[in-house]
C-alpha cells in the first residue's frame, strides 16, 4: 500500500541552517491496517504523514504508493492519484467556509472521480448519514460544532472511495467525549469498509484503536514495526 524507503525531510530555515523533520525512515503500511503513529510535538509525525500523501517532497528517499514512486509522477498524475486513493483528514478546521456541508463533501469529485454525475450527490448524502449529519446538508461550517465539522471532513475524505485514510491528529481540537465518538467512527469505517487507516496522534490512550502502533521521536521511528 504505502512504502517509505529511507526517507529524509529537511526544512530550510535560512541560508545556512535547516532542521531535519524526518530522518532515514523506512515504513511499510499494508492494506486494511489501522496504524497509529504517536509521538511528542515536533517528533516528525505530521511530516511523515505529509510525505506518505505526497504533500511534501522528501529531501531524499522514495515514497511508493501501490508500487508507484509518487515523485516520478507529474503534478497532474500525482494529484489524480491522491484524489482517487487517499482521503485526508486534517488537524485544523479544513472545511471551505464559503461552501455548504454538501458542497464541501462533494469537493473532491471536482478534481476527479469514478462516480458519474448522478451518483455524486447521492453518495454525499449517504456518507453524511453515516457520520450522523444527514440533516445538515445545507448548513455552513460556521453553523457546526468542532466535532460535527470533523465528521464532515471524514465524509469528504471518503467521497472518492479511497483505499487509505490519512488522519493528522483528527481529535486534537475535540473534547474527550467527541474524541471517543470520532475514534469509534474510524474503527467502524476501518472494519466495515476495509479501508486502511494511518492516524497520527500525541494521545497514547488512542493506540488501542489501531492494529499497529508506531512511536516517533526526533524524526525517527523508535518503536513499533518499521
Amino acid at each position, binding site marked *: 500500500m504505502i512504502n517509505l524507503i529511507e526517507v529524509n525531510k529537511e526544512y530550510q530555515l535560512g541560508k545556512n541552517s535547516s532542521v531535519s523533520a524526518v530522518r532515514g525512515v523506512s515504513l511499510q503500511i499494508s492494506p486494511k491496517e489501522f496504524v497509529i503513529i504517536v509521538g511528542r510535538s515536533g517528533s516528525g509525525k505530521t511530516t511523515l504523514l505529509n510525505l506518505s500523501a505526497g*504533500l511534501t517532497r522528501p529531501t531524499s528517499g522514495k515514497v511508493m504508493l501501490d508500487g508507484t514512486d509518487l515523485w516520478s509522477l507529474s503534478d497532474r498524475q500525482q494529484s489524480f492519484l491522491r484524489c*482517487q486513493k487517499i482521503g*485526508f483528514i486534517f488537524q485544523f478546521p479544513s472545511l471551505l467556509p464559503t461552501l455548504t456541508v454538501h458542497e464541501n463533501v462533494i469537493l*473532491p469529485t471536482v478534481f476527479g472521480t469514478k462516480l458519474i454525475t448522478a451518483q455524486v450527490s447521492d453518495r454525499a448524502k449517504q456518507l453524511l448519514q453515516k457520520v450522523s449529519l444527514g440533516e445538515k446538508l445545507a448548513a455552513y461550517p460556521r453553523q457546526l460544532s468542532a466535532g460535527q465539522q470533523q465528521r464532515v471532513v471524514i465524509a469528504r475524505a471518503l467521497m472518492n472511495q479511497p483505499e487509505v485514510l490519512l488522519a493528522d491528529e483528527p481529535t486534537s481540537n475535540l473534547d474527550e467525549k467527541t474524541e471517543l465518538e470520532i475514534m469509534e467512527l474510524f474503527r467502524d469505517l476501518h472494519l466495515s469498509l476495509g479501508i486502511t487507516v494511518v492516524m497520527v496522534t500525541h494521545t497514547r490512550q488512542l493506540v488501542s484503536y489501531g492494529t499497529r502502533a508506531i512511536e516517533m521521536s526526533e524524526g525517527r521511528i523508535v518503536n513499533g514495526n518499521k
Partner: protein
Amino acid sequence: MNLFQLALKNISGNSFRSGVVSLCALLVAAFALTTTLLMRGAENSLRLAIDRLGADIIVVPAGSEAKIESALLMGVPARFWMPQDNVNKIAVIPGIEAVSPQLYLATLTGADCCSVSDMFMIAYDPQTDFTIQPWLNQKLGNGLRLGEVVGGSYIFATEGVQNIKVFGYLVTLKANLEPTGTGLDQSMFFTFNTAYDIAQKSATQAEEALVIPPDSISAVLVKAAPGSDLYVISAQIMRELPEVTPILSSNMFQSYRQQMTGLLKTILVIMGITLGLSVVLIGLVFSMAANERRKELGVIRALGATRRFVFQSLLMEASLLAFLGGATGIGLAVLSVYLFRKLLIVSLGFPFILPSPAVLLLQISIGLLLALFSVNLAALFPAIKISRQDPAVAMRE
C-alpha cells in the same frame, strides 16, 4: 460543482475584498471607455463638420478664422463681411473647379420675433452651391423655395406646423440634416433669396432689423479640381486678395485639435496612473487574499487539485471580478456620456458625437478587455506563487 461555481462561491465569501477589486476594474473600464468615447467622438465630429462643409478651402476675411471655427464647431454665431466680388476673383484662379459664396447670420438674443436666440444661420447661393444643394436634391427632389429652410439635427418645429419665426418672418422647416455633434446641428440653412427677404421684411416685423450689407458675403467655399495642389491655390488666393485668409479644410479646427491633443495627453497620463495604481492595489489585495487562503488552498491540493487548478481558480476569480466591475464601469460610462453629452461639450469646449452602435460595441469590448487584462495581470504573480507552494508548507501555521 466546477471551477466557475467554486470561484463564484469564493468571491461571495469575502464581499469587501471582492468589492475593492471590482471597484478598481470599474474605474479602469469606465475611464478607458469615457476617454475613447470623448476623443473618438470629438474627432468624428470634426470630420463630419469638415465633410458637411464640402469644400476644400474656405475663404474668410482676414482675422475671422477663429470666428468661423467657433461658428461651425460650437454654433456661436459669427458675422463678418467681405466684398461679393471676391467670388469672381477667386473663381478664375487656376486649379479651382467651383466656388460658392455664403452669408453668415444670426438671430437676435431674447427677442420675441425670433423663435430661437442666437442661432447661427447660413445662407447659400443655390446656383453655385455644391454642399447643401446636392443633398437637398437627393432628399427632397428639389432645392429650397423662398421661405423654406433646412435645419441641423437639433432644429425642430411643432408637428404639423412647420413654421419657425426668424426676425418676425415665418420660415418652413423642410428637412433636418444628420447630426455632426457640432454647432452645425443647431444651425439653419436657407437660400440667399430667403435671407434678403427676411432682411427686407424684418425692418417692420422684427424688434431689430436684420442687416446684410449690400454686395457683401461672409465666406467663399472653394472646390479644387482633382489633382490640384491646395497650398498653391491658397497662396494664389492670398496674392490676389491680401485681405482674406484661405483655410484648408484639412487644417480647419487646428486650435481645437491642439486642444484635444493636449487634453488627450493629460487624460492618458491620468489613465496610466489609474491603471498602474489599480494593478498595484489589486495585486496587494490578491496577495493578501492568497496568503489568507493559504491553508484553504493547501487543503484543496491535498484533496487532489493540481497546481494548474489552483492557478486557474484564482485567475477565474480575478476574471469574474474584473468582468463584474468592468461591465458596471462601462454601463456607467455610457450612461453618463449619453446623459451629460451637452454638458461635456460646453465644459470641454469641443464638439462630440456618439459613435454608431457597432463602434460603441467595439469600444465597450476594448474597455472590458482592459479591465480583464489589468486585474488578471495583478493577480498573476500571487496566483503563480500560491499554486507552486508545497501543500504541506501551505497548511502549516
